[in-house]
């Protein structure tokens, strides 16, 4: 090629056909291991950059709200286990709290402590599950084995407590199903003493891990104002610097009787949400320890015979208790007409139940405010402009569970 040829080529350049840059449509999921269940997202891409994303929900829709209208209030408790199947205890808690608000019944003090301890144990399990899978999605596989080691210990405690590991149904309207045994208290004390050193172990794997930081810092940023507008809740909202925690705003259980703080992030990126959740592990540990120390003596169930099943010993010896038990399990209890909303700070966010009662033993309408579903509403906003690999990080940072999202 001589010099003259080269000049002719440069002259021709403007008229050469341009590189084709059309947008690409990509279906991610529903059968993708990192989508945390059956979630499909239709991504519009420009190269590797996300222009628009449209989550397609409903692959796990079971019509739980419709089913609730045809069964009694107590019969719905096992259904709540299957909403967020990673954290069944907290779903039970949120549901029975809503019913207690509707019926206006109080719960004995010991029961409040037991509920708080188990709820915080469930929060630790949820956060460990989240940490393991989030790190696994990003490529740090070891963390998964470490977190699931502690999760097993806690699930064994649940096994001892109610005979089930995942679908627990331990909470009851007016109290809990059974009291702690001394073995559970010993196991919990042992766990609480060990756990801070375990969190340090997770930190050694992640805090200085360059890949982890590169994949989380400055990814999926959402400002505090936007996060509130999109109705995000839980750690996802607090990572953006908004101080919104229902355990502080409208305390329930024993949360107002123990000392703990709400960790707040600053930048609203994936790293800050990770940091908030790691701090919450420490706080939950503190709450459990203080509750165990303060655990009062007393009943673990309220004595409201028409609503709460009487203790088994009394059913066998006392005529009235037997009648109440029979009526409760054959007909359920009647709720007064009215409508209430009761939100509870589950580990994923604000899990709320809106219940419309027209009297009778079945809800007229039961609506579940599922944080996973509402978080998916902000997905497009948070994924826009990032790379396709970051989509996986965003699924993880919401900590979504499709059972709750699709209901």
């Amino acid at each position, binding site marked *: 090629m001589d010099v003259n040829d080269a000049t002719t080529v440069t002259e021709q350049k403007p008229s050469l056909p341009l590189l084709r840059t059309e947008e690409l449509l990509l279906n991610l999921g529903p059968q993708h291991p990192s989508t945390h269940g059956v979630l499909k997202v239709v991504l519009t891409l420009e190269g590797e950059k996300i222009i628009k994303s449209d989550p397609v929900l409903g692959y796990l829709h079971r019509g739980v709200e419709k089913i609730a209208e045809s069964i009694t209030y107590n019969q719905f408790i096992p259904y709540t286990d299957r909403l967020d199947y990673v954290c069944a205890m907290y779903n039970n808690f949120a549901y029975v709290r809503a019913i207690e608000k509707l019926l206006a019944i109080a719960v004995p003090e010991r029961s409040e402590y037991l509920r708080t301890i188990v709820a915080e144990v469930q929060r630790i399990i949820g956060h460990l599950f989240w940490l393991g899978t989030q790190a696994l999605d990003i490529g740090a596989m070891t963390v998964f084995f470490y977190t699931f080691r502690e999760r097993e210990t806690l699930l064994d405690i649940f096994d001892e407590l109610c005979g089930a590991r995942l679908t627990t149904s331990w909470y009851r309207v007016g109290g809990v199903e059974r009291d702690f045994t001394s073995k559970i208290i010993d196991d919990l004390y042992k766990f609480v003493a060990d756990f801070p050193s375990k969190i340090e172990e997770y930190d050694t794997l992640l805090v200085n891990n360059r890949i982890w930081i590169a994949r989380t810092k400055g990814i999926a940023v959402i400002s505090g104002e936007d996060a509130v507008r999109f109705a995000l809740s839980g750690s996802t909202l607090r990572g953006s610097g908004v101080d919104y925690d229902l355990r502080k705003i409208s305390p329930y259980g024993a949360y107002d009787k123990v000392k703990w703080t709400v960790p707040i992030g600053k930048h609203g990126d994936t790293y800050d949400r990770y940091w908030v959740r790691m701090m919450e592990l420490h706080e939950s540990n503190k709450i459990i320890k203080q509750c165990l120390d303060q655990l009062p003596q007393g009943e673990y169930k309220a004595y409201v015979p028409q609503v709460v099943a009487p203790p088994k010993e009394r059913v066998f010896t006392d005529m009235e208790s037997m009648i109440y038990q029979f009526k409760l399990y054959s007909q359920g209890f009647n709720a007064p007409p009215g409508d209430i909303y009761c939100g509870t700070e589950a580990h994923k966010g604000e899990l709320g139940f809106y219940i419309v009662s027209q009297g009778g033993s079945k809800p007229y309408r039961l609506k579940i*405010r599922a944080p996973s579903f509402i978080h998916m509403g902000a997905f497009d906003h948070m994924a826009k402009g990032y790379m396709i690999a970051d989509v996986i990080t965003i699924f993880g940072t919401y900590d979504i569970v499709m059972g709750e999202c699709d209901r």
Partner: protein
Amino acid sequence: MNIPSGMEEGGNHPVAQKIRERFSSGYLGATLFRGDLSIHLKKEDLFEVGRFLRDDPSLDFDYPVHVTSVDYMGEPERFEVVYEFFSIRKKHQVRLKARVSEDDCTVDSLTPLWEGLNYMEREVYDMMGIKFNHHPDLRRILLPDEYDEGYPLRKNFPIEGRGWRDTFEFLESS
């Protein structure tokens, strides 16, 4: 408006008073039940009340909690759309309720005010068939786009489902 038994009149609540002063024609009443304030409105005023709740500095409702609809089958205005808001700074709550009739099953969307309501309103449309005017993207969300057996949370929708499902043998034999 008749206050149902067991509920308290909520007109003296400061939030209810503000709305009644500003929207005297659209305000139909307020109730208090277990500490929850509910305000009944005409559906035409829902959007403006929403804007007022968000922008008035003394109300400052910044957080949309949930959107729900309830089917009161047999009543002249069959559906009720329920919006619940919370103020993170002022720490108070309000629930707005507007009745919608079956013939004119539409209500103004509040998504232009709070973007987070987008998915929640889509769910109400999907499950109960209430159309939201000016909604940016009103499609079914949990059910497939081509689903045409109706709206499952309506009271006249059978719990076992419609279409091929109600030809199961065990349903016919019972």
